[in-house]
């Protein structure tokens, strides 16, 4: 009932290639990319990407939005921690969306941020499926 992360290829340990499936209204939290490169391509539908500044050290206020854009089918985007943080959402209430993500080097934990306060929390990311097989956990 939320967007799914489906691993396609783990590139001999050098990268993770995955497909994300977004239902209507599904969105991610604000997150960082654990010092890795992140490429994203829209395969179907549209996704809104909102960029945020890193919160101050002792963040205790609303996080600052840097910019936002809607990525259309076949468009690509890139982000890494030096660029900032982002939230990705399918804002459509009628269409699903599918995106292809490449992370190098691969990572399975990142920080999520509370937009109201800037507080961060480390989370472990999980896969809905890997190489076509449902991951049970």
């Amino acid at each position, binding site marked *: 009932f939320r967007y799914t992360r489906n691993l396609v290829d783990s590139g001999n340990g050098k990268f993770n290639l995955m497909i994300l499936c977004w239902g*209507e*209204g599904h969105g991610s939290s*604000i997150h960082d990319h654990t010092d890795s490169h992140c490429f994203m391509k829209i395969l179907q539908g549209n996704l809104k990407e909102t960029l945020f500044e890193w919160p101050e050290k002792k963040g205790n206020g609303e996080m600052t939005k840097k910019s936002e854009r809607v990525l259309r089918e076949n468009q690509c985007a890139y982000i890494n921690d030096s660029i900032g943080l982002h939230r990705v959402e399918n*804002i459509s209430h009628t269409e699903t969306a599918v995106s292809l993500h490449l992370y190098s080097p691969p990572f399975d934990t990142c920080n999520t941020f*509370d937009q109201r306060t800037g507080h961060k929390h480390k989370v472990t990311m999980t896969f809905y499926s890997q190489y076509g097989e449902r991951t049970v956990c």
Partner: protein
Amino acid sequence: LPAGLSQWFPALEVLDVSGTGLTEMGAELLSLPCLHTLLAKNNRLGGPGSLPKGLGQAPLASSLRVLNLSGNRFADVPPVLLRLRGLRSLSLGGNRLHSIPPDIQELRSLEFLYLGGNFITSIPPELAKLPSLKYLVLCDNKIQSIPPQLAQLHSLRSLSLHNNLLTYLPREILNLVHLEELSLRGNPLVVRFVRDLTYNPPSLQELAGRTVKTRNVPYTPSDLPETLVRYLSLASNCPNPKCGGVYFDSCVRQIKFVDFCGKYRLPLMHYLCSPECSSPYSSASQSSTSQSESDSEDEASVAAHRMQKVLLG
């Protein structure tokens, strides 16, 4: 829809007429006995004739399982839609709804309800009477409060409330034991502890009622006028476990913050019997901030067991 539809395709099970500019769907639908999925999103439906009149009596009423009317122009839910007793999945996302009809409770088989992207301002408590509802989407609306009765949705797995006008949640939300996902971002949730929002002093009737209940004063229906017997039966118990108090109409509305999964502090609205009755840990003279800290710890352990994944984002 073409008039010969049911003659050409009598065994039709899935019909997708999305993005065709349809303004109405008529009797052609009614004689499709095998139809279980109807997708009609991104059309111009919403006016009279959007759904056929005889829908409630047609075989479709019990056989239709999935109905997607998202991206249309519905300003209200057509009453005839509520006759679809077999409906499991309903989407009215991206329409122009300002409210949810209480009769939504008639869709007894509903498991999935998508109402995101409308102009809904409030949720009728009757929505909580849907026994099989697993997935409820109310994001991108104008909802200001959640009725506590929503905690009766025992089957609810996923609740989407992001981008609304919520400042707090009813504490009963902790009772949704199967809830795995909750999205709350983009709501003006109260961040600071707000103490004693309102307190209307109790009437003499209320004070007398409280005494009867807390002291277990015996009475029978022949002792009192019927209105008072009914009044006494409406007593609510103060949620503070260390207080045996009851209240009728007069209560303190107080915001308490609860930590979910050790991550986020959510403001929950508590109804307490009096301003003095605040927490198991507090004494009357404690400051508000320390009170909220200790309350949160106490509730956090309860909440942590109950909710698994909170997507505040």
